[in-house]
């Protein structure tokens, strides 16, 4: 059962210097009870996809396509309808946990916020719920934790607070936008399993957006790889990490520490660079004339989707 279906999503930013295409023709599905990882480098547009789902993009963004969630096209909802959705049916956690929390309110107040807004709980009850949530996030002393302020907690603790707050109302979909950026390996090893467990217990599906393949590998069911605004490969996690098809995916796996830190030559195009044909061809060892001229379509190989001419059997 598909929980979220993105079809033909395009996002363009209108600037003084011209239009910038951040996301080009993205289609993907997130099913019930699964974790889908969207892997890509900084600047490929993956955060834009997350923000598009929740309509959090700045005023100069132009969107087209459909995003179906529970049979409703999210792109057609107005702000009030979206606001009632956010935090309740779809929740999101951002990159920098310390910045996402308001420094002048206590942790208890902020974790209890979804209850007060969506379920009209009073202060006392929302505080109670906050305490139990924090306990489940493996905080040792939830009673004192709720009275503390964000600056008294470390980055890792704040991230756990945010996860707690996001899962408070048991959303159907949890979006995590680079939740482990800037954290030590140790902390990542603490938070990721927690995220996984929590999602299984409280939410239905997790949309994990990250550049870190090891994190994706640990908890995802399916993988989508994004490059320069396009999705270039989609597969189940086990298949992907065993046999990635797209040259870029192969390059990514090659640059992992365990595979010897082999870099992909060249650099990722920024959104303002224009590249004809296949976006990856300047860095691809396999590229031929066709790749330089034409844009590859999506090819289906044994349940894996690849956007690469190499797999054109036609």
């Amino acid at each position, binding site marked *: 059962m598909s929980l979220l279906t993105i079809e033909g999503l395009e996002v363009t*930013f209108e*600037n*003084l*210097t*011209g239009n*910038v295409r*951040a996301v080009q023709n993205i289609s993907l599905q997130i099913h019930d009870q699964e974790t889908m990882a969207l892997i890509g480098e*900084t*600047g490929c*547009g993956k*955060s*834009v996809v997350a923000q598009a789902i929740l309509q959090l993009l*700045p*005023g*100069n963004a132009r969107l087209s396509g459909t995003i179906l969630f529970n049979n409703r096209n999210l792109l057609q909802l107005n702000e009030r309808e979206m606001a009632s959705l956010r935090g309740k049916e779809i929740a999101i956690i951002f990159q920098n946990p310390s910045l996402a929390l308001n420094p002048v309110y206590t942790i208890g107040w902020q974790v209890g916020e979804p209850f007060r807004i969506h379920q009209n709980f009073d202060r006392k009850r929302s505080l109670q719920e906050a305490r139990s949530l924090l306990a489940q996030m493996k905080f040792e002393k939830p009673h004192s934790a709720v009275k503390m302020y964000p600056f008294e907690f470390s980055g890792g603790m704040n991230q756990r607070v945010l996860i707690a707050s996001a899962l408070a109302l048991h959303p159907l979909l949890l979006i995590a936008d680079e939740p482990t950026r800037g954290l030590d390996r140790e902390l990542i090893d603490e938070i990721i399993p927690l995220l996984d467990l929590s999602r299984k217990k409280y939410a239905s599906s997790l949309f994990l957006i990250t550049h870190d393949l090891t994190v994706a590998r640990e908890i995802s069911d399916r993988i989508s790889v994004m490059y320069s605004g396009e999705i270039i490969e989609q597969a189940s996690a086990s298949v992907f990490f065993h046999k990635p098809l797209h040259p870029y995916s192969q390059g990514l796996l090659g640059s992992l520490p365990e595979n010897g830190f082999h870099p992909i030559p060249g650099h990722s195009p*920024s*959104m*303002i660079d224009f590249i004809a044909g296949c976006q990856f061809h300047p860095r691809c060892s396999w590229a031929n004339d066709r790749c330089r001229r034409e844009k590859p379509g999506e090819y289906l190989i044994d349940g894996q989707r690849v956007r690469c001419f190499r797999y054109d059997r036609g």
Partner: protein
Amino acid sequence: MKRYVLNRRKYLWWFGGALFLFFIILAVFSSSIAPYHPRERFEPFVSPSQKHLWGTNDIGNDIFSEFVYGSRVSLLVGLFTGALSTSLGVVIGLIAGFHSGFFDEVLMGLTDVVLMIPRIPLIIVLSAFLRPNMWLLILVMSILWWTSTARVIRSRTMQIRAMSFVESARCLGFSNRHIVFSEVLPNIFMVVIPEFLLTVASAMISETSLSFLGLGDPSLKSWGTMIHFAFQRGGFLNGMWWWYIPPGLGITFFVMSIVFLSFSFEEGEFELKEEVKDVSFNN
């Protein structure tokens, strides 16, 4: 949300800018715009008529001409005070923010002391002992008005100093002098401009108020002086609104235009960043 901010900034800039430009033209081209010399005497207490757009005052000067020439005084006092006190504030703020510790403590202590001095009363007291004079006023105001600028600049300097590129510069071997002028200063520039504009506005209002109290330079006819004489010589009592309303509105709108400009600059800080990079790389 961003759309709204973008538009508001534009409105502030255009409206404030246009109004400001209007007054600048008034001040610079006074001799061409004013029909008569402000000290030329005609029949006193004339109501607005064809010959005298806004009538004449108690000694027969054409009020419209007085108004036009009065803009010069406000502008001069404002600009000079703004320039001097902002310079002083920037220097003090930079030194305090850049060299924390001893210098910071001393300079901030000095700032606190100056802040405690009641500004207008001090000027009033000084006027009692010295002949009121525009340059004296500018000097005294410059010595008192720099404190808010110093604090803001100090804050910003401390922020910048903590950034990696300043440490990088130190590591590469640049002298402190280079770092302050070449690395720090360009990053505080956008903060200096609103401070300057607000100081100008504040100085203009102060000058007008002091002139209204009769402590202004008697040889110059500022708007405040006009209102002062309107008050003293029966303009209020006789309902001669064309005498005191124009200068009152004049100072109000002149100051308002400056404040709007300074607001548009504060919002403009974000705008400039958008133009410099085509799109945020971390999207």
